[in-house]
């Protein structure tokens, strides 16, 4: 025999305060990302691996100067893209597919609160990524230059741009299509966006196009600040801002919750 606990089911409905709901959802999402092996591979292991590999070997011809000084800004840009775009698109795509977004829609957590929690999650994961990448880079002899505030601005604009397109993909395509497309975009932008392979290695005719990719704009902005000590890389930041506005506007317009 088991004794059954008595539950007091008397209705006592009331929503928790919004900040508490957002905090709970954020903590839950961060835990989910940290626990997910595939997401960690994408967000931490691959960037750190590329940083170490190309810093300590001479597999790539990176021109004059310390290799790590060239690589680290690109790796930070890659980390931002992997979290704000790839990981968020895939995670949200499957939440939509499994009716999680729909179910959350029946709780007191408003949609704006859910989006806020997702944004906070991305920012927290990025903080962790930047901390780890910075530690590894410093150990490899990185000597960053420039104004940290300018680098932070570039990361924030990049995050907004990648989040917009990540959510656009998650909210419009089937989850399997999002999985495939988000990974493909990740690889293509990693190869083409000046992250590890310098833009100068690409054919002359292609470069003007590549320069307007969001990953290139973020990489070049971070490199201008952190490697060359530029005060404010205006053109790159403008490109990122345009991508951010376009991505967020499209996501707001076309995102389907189920």
């Amino acid at each position, binding site marked *: 025999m088991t004794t059954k606990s008595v539950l007091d089911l008397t*209705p006592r409905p*009331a929503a928790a305060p919004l900040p508490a709901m957002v905090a*709970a959802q954020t903590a839950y999402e961060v835990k*989910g990302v940290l626990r997910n092996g595939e997401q960690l591979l994408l967000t931490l292991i691959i960037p750190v691996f590329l940083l170490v590999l190309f810093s300590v070997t001479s597999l790539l011809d990176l021109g004059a100067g310390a290799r790590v000084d060239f690589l680290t800004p690109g790796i930070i840009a890659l980390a931002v893209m992997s979290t704000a775009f790839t990981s968020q698109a895939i995670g949200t795509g*499957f939440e939509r597919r499994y009716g999680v977004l*729909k179910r959350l*829609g*029946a709780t007191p*957590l408003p949609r704006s609160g859910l989006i806020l929690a997702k944004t906070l999650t991305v920012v927290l994961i990025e903080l962790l990524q930047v901390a780890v990448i910075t530690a590894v880079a410093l150990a490899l002899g990185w000597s960053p230059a420039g104004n940290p505030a300018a680098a932070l601005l570039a990361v924030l604009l990049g995050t907004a741009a990648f989040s917009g397109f990540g959510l656009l993909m998650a909210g419009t395509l089937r989850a399997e299509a999002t999985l495939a497309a988000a990974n493909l975009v990740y690889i293509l932008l990693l190869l083409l966006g000046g992250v590890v392979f310098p833009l100068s290695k690409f054919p002359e005719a292609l470069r003007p196009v590549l320069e307007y990719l969001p990953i290139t704009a973020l990489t070049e902005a971070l490199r201008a600040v952190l490697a060359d000590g530029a005060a404010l890389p205006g053109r790159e930041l403008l490109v990122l801002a345009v991508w951010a506005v376009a991505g967020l506007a499209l996501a707001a317009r076309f995102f389907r919750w189920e």
Partner: protein
Amino acid sequence: MAAPPALEITGLVKRYGPATAVDGLTLTAARGEVTALLGPNGAGKTSTIEICEGFRPHDAGTVRVLGLAPRDRALKPRIGVMPQTGGVPGTARAGEFLRLMASFHRDPLDPAALMERLGLTAHARTPYRRMSGGQQQRLSLAAALVGRPELVFLDEPTAGLDPQARHATWELVGELRAAGVSVLLTTHFMDEAEQLADHVVIVDHGRVVAEGSPAELTGAERQLRFRARPGLGLDELVGALPVGSAAKESPAGHYLVEGDVRPELLATVTAWCAAHGVLAEDLRIERRTLEDVFLELTGRELRG
């Protein structure tokens, strides 16, 4: 002014392209009662419940949930929703998910006690995708209840449950009712509707075809059933019975006598059996079941 009913639906219409899923459905679910939407697959039950939950827009008619429009945000803390499937991320651990759901409410049930009650304590750290279908259903039910709602929507709450889990769920629905919670559930299990519901609404082709308490629906009519060897000559039996009685064999060896079932009728049947050397096994007099009523109203053909 009296509190508005739990649900008030008038002339509800829902179309998907050229198909009409809900076709002028009207029903009222009283506060503090268990209302069951009973119907075959594709009858429009889930469409109706999802419109009430605020998940889908409707094409025509009016819907009031606790007196409010289904998409009114003020409704969210007051309702609990158990969807037919899913709604939980595959990687989510049961305990964490339930605690998250609880954290959206100011005064929730203790998630641990609820897990204990639903036999999920041992699976608190199991990811959703590794839980059995029955465990997933129970977690989904727990998530619907944890916010102490006034009105709970349960879309086929016992589909795929083993008998123990099914009875545990029924017991919990009984307790919800005792605590004054209004419940709207959909089911295609007759016994579930008969056991749980104060009010049964039979839905077919997107319309209400009958409603009432289980007793009202099954009526006072009785019938007599027995088993015996197949192929008895029933014409002679019917001849001996009062006018208006009927007898049939379906399936082979199972006999059903309908009509004004009185002691005299029982005596006539047993006397006829004795005269023909027939031992009537499992002889019983029963009321029509909800299943009889249901099949009468919705037909016996299979639905695609």
